[in-house]
């Protein structure tokens, strides 16, 4: 059986520094996987390799069996591989409504239309507000993004990803920068992601990871040192070494 998304023996070195060493992993439909690892483990490099912002030295990235290693970032998105950003990248002067509508129009191949307005397209408007409703953003639909709170901007980031209807979603620290009291908003949003979507979440917020992921992959010094159930990860000796260092054998987390 071919996996929905597969990374095959990916290698990347910057000069003499091997940042990604022989990384292989696979995701199937509906998977909820977290990729964790201490600072400097090579998580960001891995995301950049997968999304096409960096070229690997060797190895492949496959979507549904098709090799997309030579695709540029734009074509990977069109193939169904969508990412969210660790620091929100939104259009400050535009409203959430415009953001989501633009993503829908882009997905439908209508973003090049030079006449008409999305507000006059009932199907686009309906879907836009369905997505905003799912993320509790309806009330902010017409407020410029520069005027809404950061936590809600993070939600809009997820809304944009949803509007593109990806097959595989890479979430790069979805809760980064959000006050702890608001993380539940992000968690609720994640819980509502479509069931058949494969999600790879990169994060180091352990609470979030353990509640969200059914499977955990641990990256340390560019290498996968663990791939399995969250429960087992906490008991794995190598993970404890890499992640918790000297605290591994201290009090329970």
């Amino acid at each position: 059986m071919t996996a929905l998304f597969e990374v095959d023996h990916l290698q990347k070195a910057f000069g003499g520094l091997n940042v990604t060493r022989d990384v292989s992993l696979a995701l199937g439909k509906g998977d909820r996987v977290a990729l964790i690892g201490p600072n400097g483990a090579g998580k960001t490099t891995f995301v950049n390799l997968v999304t096409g912002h960096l070229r690997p030295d060797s190895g492949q990235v496959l979507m549904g069996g098709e090799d997309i290693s030579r695709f540029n970032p734009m074509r990977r998105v069109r193939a169904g591989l969508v990412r969210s950003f660790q620091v929100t990248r939104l259009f400050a002067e535009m409203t959430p409504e415009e953001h989501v509508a633009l993503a829908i129009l882009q997905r439908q191949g209508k973003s090049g239309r030079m006449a008409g307005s999305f507000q006059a397209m009932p199907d686009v408007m309906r879907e836009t507000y369905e997505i905003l409703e799912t993320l509790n953003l309806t009330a902010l639909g017409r407020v410029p993004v520069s005027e809404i709170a950061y936590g809600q901007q993070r939600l809009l980031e997820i809304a944009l990803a949803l509007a593109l209807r990806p097959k595989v979603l890479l979430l790069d620290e979805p809760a980064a920068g959000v006050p702890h009291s608001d993380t539940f908003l992000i968690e609720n949003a994640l819980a509502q992601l479509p069931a058949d979507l494969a999600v790879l979440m990169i994060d180091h917020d352990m609470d979030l990871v353990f509640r969200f992921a059914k499977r955990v992959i641990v990256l340390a010094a560019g290498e996968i040192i663990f791939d399995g159930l969250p429960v087992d990860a906490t008991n794995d000796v190598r993970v404890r070494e890499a992640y918790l260092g000297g605290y591994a054998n201290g009090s329970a987390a």
Partner: protein
Amino acid sequence: MSAGVSVTAMPAQNRGWQRDLIGIAVILIAAMAGYFLFPDNLALLTRMIAIMLLVLSLDLVTGYCGVATLGHAALFGSGAYAAGIAAAHFGITEPITMIAIGAVGGALAGLISGIVILRGHGLAQLVLSIAIIHLFHEAANKASQYTGGSDGLSGISPDPILGVFEFDLWGRTAYVFGIVLLLLVFILLRILVRSPFGMLCRGIRQDPIRVSAMGASVKLTLIKMYVISGLVAGVGGAFNAVSTQVVGLDSLSFTNSAEALVMLVLGGVGSLYGALIGTIAFVWIEDLVSAANPFHWLTIVGALLIAVVLFAPKGLYGTAATLVERYRRGGK
């Protein structure tokens, strides 16, 4: 994703077109006021219209897409020369055809400069745009067989418009023709900037990386916009050729490009109204000040510009719009 969302949650459509109708009415009233208040100055007003088209065109790439350029007159001048050469050398003197030829010439120049300028970012982009305008200028200078070189291209005598309205000595026909062209372009551009494509361009200005993460091609979108911008500038250039019956090398000059940018900044970047108001303000002040003090008028224009940039960084229109918005919100 939840399926059953109540449609009542969906707000109604914005009534932006009502504002556009007001805008169009204001332009028409201003045009009529100009016609009746300054009957002896129609030539200046007509030149203003041609420059407005150039500044509108610049606004498309700079204001809406965030491309910095000091070479936009290349598109304007190409339109002017295309129409002028068609008339002077090939006997195509039907004015509407000349405008169309100018539009095509401008679009081609837009395609070429877009491909070159968009290879760079920031400062490199600016330098490439300066290189482009100098290359176009030099090419027109060298091809004097067709362009008349530094003497300018003369011998352009357009036919009556639609075979009825002859170009008169006072420039009345040219003025009305210009207003019609300007309104037509303005309406089409209002539709364009509000369309999905216009929204995509605004997105590119604010965060190109986000746009490519949506799966859209930033480069291709910008080049398309450059071609459209070339169409508009080309219409402006061709109209200048039709109304003045000459094309000079200055239409392809760096100064012309830089002044267009100054007018845009003065009026307000990223708004079509800003482009129009900036042009009127600049050309009018220039005319007024240069008559009052022929020696120091550039100094005065410079000082005014510094004042606007420091105290009204959004330009005349942008600042006024912000004030009105603030007043409205405060009033509620």
